[in-house]
């Protein structure tokens, strides 16, 4: 909007906003930032670094399985690598990049706010996430990586069978990581509830935001259960408690229940942001509004909700009673319905619109194809006998890679292209973009599709090797080749985006003629996001030209500019009526300090130095005191 400023009075107002919202320059600025966009970028690069690590681990796995009886990795190394691959991709890549990077950067922009509801908490989330990821990787670096798989079943993960510190790195690291995600999700919910631009009632909120609302609620209720299971595990391992020890009245199945009560909602947590990205990209490139908008919004919320009632379908082979399994099978089928609604809404929107198949839309089409495959194989697992036959085989590996890589990561990659012009102000190279899409698409198909067949042919998952003459070798070779093609596609994306950062054509505010508010401001957006809090009368705010003209008039008249301080308006939860103006905290050294104090505490818990851990906790409490020492009106 800055570009449309015409009058000197308007320009003076924008200058004041610039001065008020400016942050410290240089490294110190990045360490103390509370700007949701800069935090989003920190999240992006950190999670991409972990994506690289997880990718290398995947390639190691595929290289080990390139033929029977290969010895690229020892069995112990293989177990550590596949465990780290799972933990990394789920906790350190997909969730942080979708929620941390995309959510953080885009959510306030899409609802016309100037920042998140709790900017310092937002910074804290990031620093805790980064610290927890480094914490877990220190385990790998010192040769104490977890190696009991990402769902870490006891008693294999107990002190008796996993005596080194690997499992402790895993458990404490994930508790730490969980605090970060919990804090972030509370922040998202309050932001969505309270900071929507006045006028953006819930029925005018973009579907992207609905997806993030659903994810945040799912995280808020799923993560504590994971934390509890991990706390029990650490108490068992470090203090000799007996939660999971059958000999003293515990039960190993308790771990499975607790883990999957978290773990299944987790699957929807992973995929819902992807749904949100898809519902952002599709309308833009097919030039029409989403078909069945209210149904899709409802479906996004329902998926998150029903996701809590299906966990035991991960345990059909554990000998649960038939009545229990049948209940969970039914619940698992119910969740197909909201997914089906969304799927056909995307497809019908594409069919009835005038799609222009640019790179971002291609990624979404790829996503739809993979989501159908992964969804259909998922439905099959609600057939109890089929599940009991194929669970823990490569068929499951195929299923969840189609869902998690094909369906969750493809929209993320599409989103990287779609919002690249907004974040950098430059266009990526369209031709290279398309080539990298087809390379990745082919690689994904060739890597993961044959895994269905391998599962049907009886190959269990998590085997570091397999015998010759089982009929498995050919498919394994094919998959490994596919994984290299896939890796090449991903590298090409990185090359394209990195080169475009310097050489891309200038993008302008709104290169796609897109419908949501992030395109109303300059590319990249100024620290205060919008010079005027935008007017909204539909979920496709940018397709309402009279609203945008009103913004320009407001700037000239000085209405809704709020240039007196570091402020943002709040509104009512449902109708988004203008409520009050709140002062936003600016950059702060306390979030990173608190994250450091907590890192110290977790390190000491790992080493069983209880007193030192307590000292770090006390230090964290002092940081919190300092955090709250400066109130808004004293700023």
């Amino acid at each position, binding site marked *: 909007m800055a570009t449309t400023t015409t009058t000197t009075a308007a320009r003076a107002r924008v200058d004041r906003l610039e001065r008020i919202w400016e942050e410290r320059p240089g490294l110190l600025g990045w360490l103390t930032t509370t700007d949701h966009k800069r935090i989003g970028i920190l999240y992006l690069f950190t999670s991409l670094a972990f994506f690289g690590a997880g990718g290398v681990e995947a390639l190691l796995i595929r290289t080990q399985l390139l033929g029977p009886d290969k010895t690229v990795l020892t*069995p*112990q190394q293989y*177990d550590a690598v596949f465990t780290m691959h799972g933990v990394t991709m789920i906790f350190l890549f997909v969730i942080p990049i979708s929620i941390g990077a995309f959510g953080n950067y885009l959510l306030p922009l899409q609802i016309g706010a100037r920042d998140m509801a709790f900017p310092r908490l937002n910074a804290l989330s990031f620093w805790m996430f980064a610290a927890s990821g480094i914490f877990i990787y220190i385990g790998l670096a010192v040769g104490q990586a977890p190696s009991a*798989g990402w769902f870490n*079943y006891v*008693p294999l993960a107990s002190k008796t*069978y996993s005596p080194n510190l690997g499992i402790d790195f895993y458990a404490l690291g994930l508790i730490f990581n969980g605090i970060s995600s919990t804090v972030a999700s509370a922040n998202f919910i309050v932001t969505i509830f309270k900071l929507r631009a006045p006028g953006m009632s819930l029925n005018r909120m973009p579907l992207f935001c609905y997806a993030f609302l659903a994810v945040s609620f799912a995280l808020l209720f799923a993560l504590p259960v994971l934390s509890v299971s991990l706390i029990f595990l650490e108490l068992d391992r470090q203090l000799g408690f007996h939660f999971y020890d*059958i000999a003293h009245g515990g*039960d*190993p*199945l308790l771990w499975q229940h607790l883990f999957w009560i978290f773990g299944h909602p987790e699957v929807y947590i992973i995929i819902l942001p992807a749904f949100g990205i898809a519902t952002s990209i599709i309308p833009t490139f097919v030039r029409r509004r989403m*078909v*069945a908008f209210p*149904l899709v919004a409802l479906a996004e919320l329902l998926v998150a909700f029903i996701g809590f009632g299906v966990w035991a379908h991960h345990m059909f*082979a554990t*000998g649960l009673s*038939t009545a229990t*399994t*049948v209940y969970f099978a*039914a619940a698992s*089928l119910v969740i*197909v*319905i909201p997914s*089906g*609604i*969304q799927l056909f*809404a995307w497809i*019908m929107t594409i069919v*009835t619109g*005038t*799609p222009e198949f640019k790179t971002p839309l291609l990624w979404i089409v790829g996503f739809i194809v993979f989501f*159908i*495959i992964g969804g*259909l194989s998922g*439905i*099959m697992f*609600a*057939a*109890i*006998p*089929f599940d*009991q*036959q*194929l*669970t*823990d*085989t490569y068929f499951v590996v195929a299923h969840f890679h189609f869902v998690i890589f094909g369906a969750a990561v493809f929209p993320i990659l599409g989103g990287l292209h779609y919002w690249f012009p907004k974040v950098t102000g430059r266009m990526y190279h369209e031709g290279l973009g398309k080539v990298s899409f087809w390379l990745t698409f082919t690689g994904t198909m060739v890597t993961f599709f044959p895994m269905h*067949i391998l*599962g*049907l*042919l*009886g*190959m*269990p*998952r998590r*085997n*570091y090797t397999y*015998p010759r003459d*089982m*009929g498995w070798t050919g498919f394994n070779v094919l998959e490994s080749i596919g994984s290299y093609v896939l890796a090449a596609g991903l590298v090409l994306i990185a090359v394209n985006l990195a080169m475009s950062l310097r050489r891309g054509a200038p993008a302008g505010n709104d290169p796609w003629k897109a419908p949501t508010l992030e395109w109303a401001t300059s590319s990249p957006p100024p620290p205060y996001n919008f010079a005027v809090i935008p007017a909204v009368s539909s979920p496709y705010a940018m397709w309402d030209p009279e609203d945008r003209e009103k913004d320009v008039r407001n700037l000239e008249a000085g209405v809704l500019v709020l240039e007196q301080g570091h402020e943002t308006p709040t509104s009512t939860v449902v109708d988004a009526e203008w409520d009050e103006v709140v002062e936003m905290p600016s950059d702060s050294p306390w979030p990173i300090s608190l994250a450091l104090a907590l890192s110290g505490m977790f390190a000491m818990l790992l080493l069983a130095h209880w007193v030192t851990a307590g000292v770090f906790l006390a230090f964290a409490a002092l940081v919190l005191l300092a955090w709250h020492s400066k109130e808004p009106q004293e700023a």
Partner: protein
Amino acid sequence: MTGAGRRHAVAVILFAALALLAAGCGDQSTLSPHSKASRDIATLWWWMLGAAGVVFFGALFLLLLGWTRRRKRGLPVFGEDEGLTTGLVVTFGIAVPVVTLIALFVVANFSVVSATQAPKTASTAMTIQVIGHQWFWEVRYPGTTAVTANEIHIPARTRVNVVATTTDVIHSLWVPELNRKIDMIPGHRNRVLLYADRPGVYRGQCAEFCGPQHAHMSMKVFAQPPDRFRAWLRNMAAPRRAPSSPELTRGEQVFVASACASCHTIRGTSAHGEVGPDLTHLATRTTLAALTIPNRRGYLGGWILDPQHIKPGAKMPAIALGGADFQAVLDYLQSLR
């Protein structure tokens, strides 16, 4: 086209290579069933694949329609009627799935499941006990003294109740050609039915990750004609064959006096170790180390002297024996029929 015809057409398009393979290769495939339970599951799979194929290609068709009509708004024939479009979403997203899913639910979870669930008590002719260890399978035949490892013998065409337990971590007993898998969980006594249509050898493998040598925790089920099974069981229940020559006697003495006896049992001797498999009738088994290597003299020798390069992480340590002792132990173990 009939339902079955369409199903096969889809199967051929999607899984041509697989179908060929499944026909030819019966090693551990879920698609070469040799029991009612396994066959029901395989049939369920082919039907689900057919239905999934219809959905997948239907959706693909719609996407292609979107591509061919990328410059035209709305639907062919029906145009831009928003209500109709929403109606289609409701039809494909709610109505059709509800019907299909109810059908799947009833067929899979009430009909097929009855063939695969744990056998009702007293519905089986015999019970055997399979106990998971890191990383081998201990097999016991309640009512007899028979104990063996990694090779489960059952009479063919007989319902066998298998009680699956574990002594350490979670394992999962899985013989795909005969039935679904069942987890072996500390403190839980899970049961599964084993039944083979005809005599044969069916390969199985641990299906729950159980540590570094999870990959080498396989087993074979030998379904035998009942009389041969009875003969086998009689032999299995007996103590070891007494050494029939001075050389074999020496082998037994070396075995009992060495580290071997602290982990292995040979019934009829003073070797009563319980860490490793029972070796009383070792020579009747076809493989060593849970199907890692064949049970032949050369492999057996290498396994005794340096098991860790064959199965890294296995509980068995290298046994240092002098040349003459080693030859005697080899002879002795090979005599344990």
